[in-house]
């Protein structure tokens, strides 16, 4: 097309779109996210929304469709489900203050492995972005004895770990780990495509992203991880010598920076090293055969009456965090006696202490997904309801602690020692946020009176103004002698 013929808006569109060729670009115009050209054609189909066109008078009208900005999440969910990614482009300056065209930027790229939104995530499952890499020394002929590195991050909770696999079973072990992990998205260096093909072929229901090999460079990886965690050395995480794991972790960080260009990722605070030898190894066939998580006849049953599994029989957790952890415990049993004993001691004591158990469970029921709430707050994606949910959760903590006081075994004592009632957080939210605050911060009505005196002053001005206007009608009637005069305000926008 002819550049010169484009309106300034469409020129800006193309500038941005050129960096996000693979994604569907949601381009904010006023109260809508609009999609143009090919994106509009694809999205209108997938979302069942009307396809229209812009500049209809021209020889080649621009295909266009749009969705209201406040309903964008639902549409994004549909596109993700259809295997697409979505680049969300916002107006990043106040249109009323802008000189000329409003500045627009992509603030987030929605990909399956980097989701944080309640509406887009199943509450009881983790959501991992994973990266794999292999030692460069090994030639394709000897890939049976590769060393392999794996990194996995759940952005919605900040859980981040690395793992390495060595020896002639490395590839099978990695395969099994990926089958248990069920990442939503997997990054790998495109140079290893051929080598990794057998692993990649067996993975299902996830998005594969071949990355430039430079994304996996060790030095850059270490540097970006040190910066992320604010440390001088990664040795404190037990990462010394785990170069493949770190390379994979570096690729994860780089991908995050690309997909969340404006987010502060402070809630990703540390890297855990997992050792294959510290966990029982269950291969994918065994996990399936034993029906640990999913029933074998899964596809035959209607959704609401899935056949039971070990997970469903054992799952009497009352929080979604517990539900996610139980799943993890089931697919990763332990192999060292001491930690197994301490879990069993705790279970035994809780079996005996009926009153404590019941008390804890009752209080736990009001605890929401603190892990994901905290992440969303840190990512700047939280709304007032999220903050209130956090307050409600924190409010239950002192009672849970009281119920734990009588418990003696070491694991439960450890939990009690790490305990924090988070009273200051509860107090802050209680003091600041109205209990019936709306889900959006757009129209206000969320801060309590008394939290911030200058706000109270402003509110007073509004009230007084309105009162004065109420009196105006009577004054004007008297003054003009017109009995039917009405004074009012058009307030809707």
């Amino acid at each position, binding site marked *: 097309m002819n550049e010169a013929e484009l309106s300034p808006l469409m020129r800006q569109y193309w500038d941005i779109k050129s960096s996000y060729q693979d994604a569907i670009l949601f381009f904010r115009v006023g109260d809508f996210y609009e999609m143009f050209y090919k994106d509009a054609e694809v999205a209108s189909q997938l979302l069942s929304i009307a396809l229209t066109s812009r500049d209809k008078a021209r020889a080649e009208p621009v295909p266009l469709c749009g969705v209201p900005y406040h309903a964008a999440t639902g549409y994004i969910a549909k596109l993700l489900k259809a295997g697409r990614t979505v680049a969300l482009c916002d107006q990043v300056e106040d249109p009323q203050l802008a000189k000329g065209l409003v500045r627009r930027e992509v603030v987030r790229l929605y990909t399956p492995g980097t989701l944080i939104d309640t509406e887009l995530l199943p509450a009881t499952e983790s959501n991992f972005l994973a990266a794999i890499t292999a030692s460069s020394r090994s030639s394709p002929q000897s890939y049976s004895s590769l060393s392999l590195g794996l990194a996995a991050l759940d952005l919605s909770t900040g859980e981040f770990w690395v793992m390495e696999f060595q020896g002639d079973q490395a590839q099978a072990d990695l395969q099994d780990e990926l089958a248990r992990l069920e990442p939503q998205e997997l990054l790998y260096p495109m140079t290893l495509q051929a080598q990794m093909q057998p692993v990649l072929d067996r993975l299902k229901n996830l998005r594969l992203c071949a990355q430039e090999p430079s994304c996996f460079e060790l030095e850059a990886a270490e540097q970006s991880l040190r910066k992320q965690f604010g440390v001088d050395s990664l040795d404190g995480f037990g990462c010394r010598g785990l170069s493949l794991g770190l390379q994979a972790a570096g690729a994860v960080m780089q991908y995050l920076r690309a997909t969340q260009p404006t987010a502060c990722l402070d809630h990703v605070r540390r890297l855990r090293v997992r050792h294959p030898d510290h966990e029982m190894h269950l291969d994918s066939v065994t996990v399936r055969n034993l029906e640990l998580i999913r029933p074998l006849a899964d596809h035959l049953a209607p959704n609401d009456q899935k056949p039971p599994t070990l997970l469903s029989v054992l799952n009497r957790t009352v929080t979604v965090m517990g539900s996610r952890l139980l799943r993890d415990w089931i697919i990763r049993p332990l192999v060292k006696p001491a930690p197994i004993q301490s879990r069993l001691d705790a279970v035994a004591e809780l079996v005996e202490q009926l009153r404590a158990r019941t008390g804890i469970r009752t209080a736990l029921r009001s605890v929401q997904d*603190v*892990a994901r709430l905290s992440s969303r*707050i840190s990512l700047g994606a939280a709304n007032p309801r999220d903050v209130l949910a956090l307050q409600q959760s924190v409010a239950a903590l002192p009672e849970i602690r009281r119920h734990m006081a009588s418990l003696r075994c070491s694991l439960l004592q450890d939990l009690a020692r790490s305990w924090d009632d988070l009273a200051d957080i509860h107090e802050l939210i209680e003091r600041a946020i109205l209990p019936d605050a709306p889900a959006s911060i757009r129209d206000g009505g969320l801060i309590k009176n008394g939290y911030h005196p200058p706000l109270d002053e402003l509110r007073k001005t509004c009230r007084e103004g309105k009162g004065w206007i109420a009196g105006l009608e009577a004054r004007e009637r008297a003054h003009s002698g017109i009995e039917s005069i009405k004074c009012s305000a058009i307030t809707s926008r």
Partner: protein
Amino acid sequence: MFGYYIEVTKANLARVPAHYIRKQTLVNAERFTTTELKELEDRVTGAELKVTTREQELFEEICTKLTQETPRLQMMATVIAVLDVLTALAETAAINQYARPDVNEGGTIRITEGRHPVVERLALSGGFIPNDILLDLEANRLLIITGPNMAGKSTYLRQVALIALMAQMGSFVPARSASVGLVDRIFTRVGASDNLTGGQSTFMVEMTETAQILNSATTRSLILLDEIGRGTSTYDGLSIAWAVAEYIQDRRHLGARTLFATHYHEMTQLAGLREGVKNYSVSVRERDGEVLFLRKIVEGGADRSYGIHVARLAGLPPPVLTRAREVLAQLERPATGVLPDQALENEPPPSDHTLPQPHPIIEEVRQMDLFSMTPLEALNRLAELQRRLEDEKP
């Protein structure tokens, strides 16, 4: 058009004071403002806008404050998750009557009255038959479990694996008592015909999966093989099953604790030839000439002729059963591979046709084990029964 206005109906327009400023025309009225009203409006809407903006700023400020507490929030999220899982496991243990397992570094798995945690939830109260097991790294390494299909072998295998797994995740287990010598890996493989794999040859899949075990299991692993070798012809399948069992049994190779369920009766001979191998079977009781599977696993090989009993239950015509008994007798004679040459049509006609007998299909429905069938299997069986009833129509 936002803001405050004074509305005057058309009829009164003539009386509007001069300082009113026209703002908007409606069908029956005109709207006006005044300089004074305008000033006030600016002040009020300005303040309203400021209120909203300030509220947004304050909210962001609060979020920033909360963000500084992320480490504490994350720590409590973890503490709560662990506490929730532990109390949930205790709750489940109490409700489902689980026992605390003894987990140790020895090599013995000894379970008394073990149950399958999932199947027992589906069974009617008291309907699940518990079973014991003794597996160790010495004389009870490889247990060959024989018995007809549908008799509960698969459930038994899986319950042993699930109890070991539950013990090592820190849960109580469905058993009267259980001692679990630590397991480093669990492998389960199910022979082809139970698998709903598409595409690749099912036997190839079965063998690939078996190869994976032999390559990555260690002495401390727990291996469950369910009808391995079924996906190919009898002699092929038997020889592969035999060789796999030998390899696992051999301490120089694996010597891992293994349960091997098979319908190849010949496998029971391994116990006499190799150390560490024991035979177990599903106990069966005959009553009034009928076979009942008790779902109890007992030491000793299965009586191979139960296959023929089952065939009778399934409604195979009496001449076929008689013939089958003859062929069996011939096969069981050593050093014979030649089938007896007497042909089926020479058999005298059976004489008991006149006796009233329960319909074989009714008997078969009675014997169906709905708890160990997938919905698809059940549907297939139903279709098969219906077809046979159709066939019987004169």
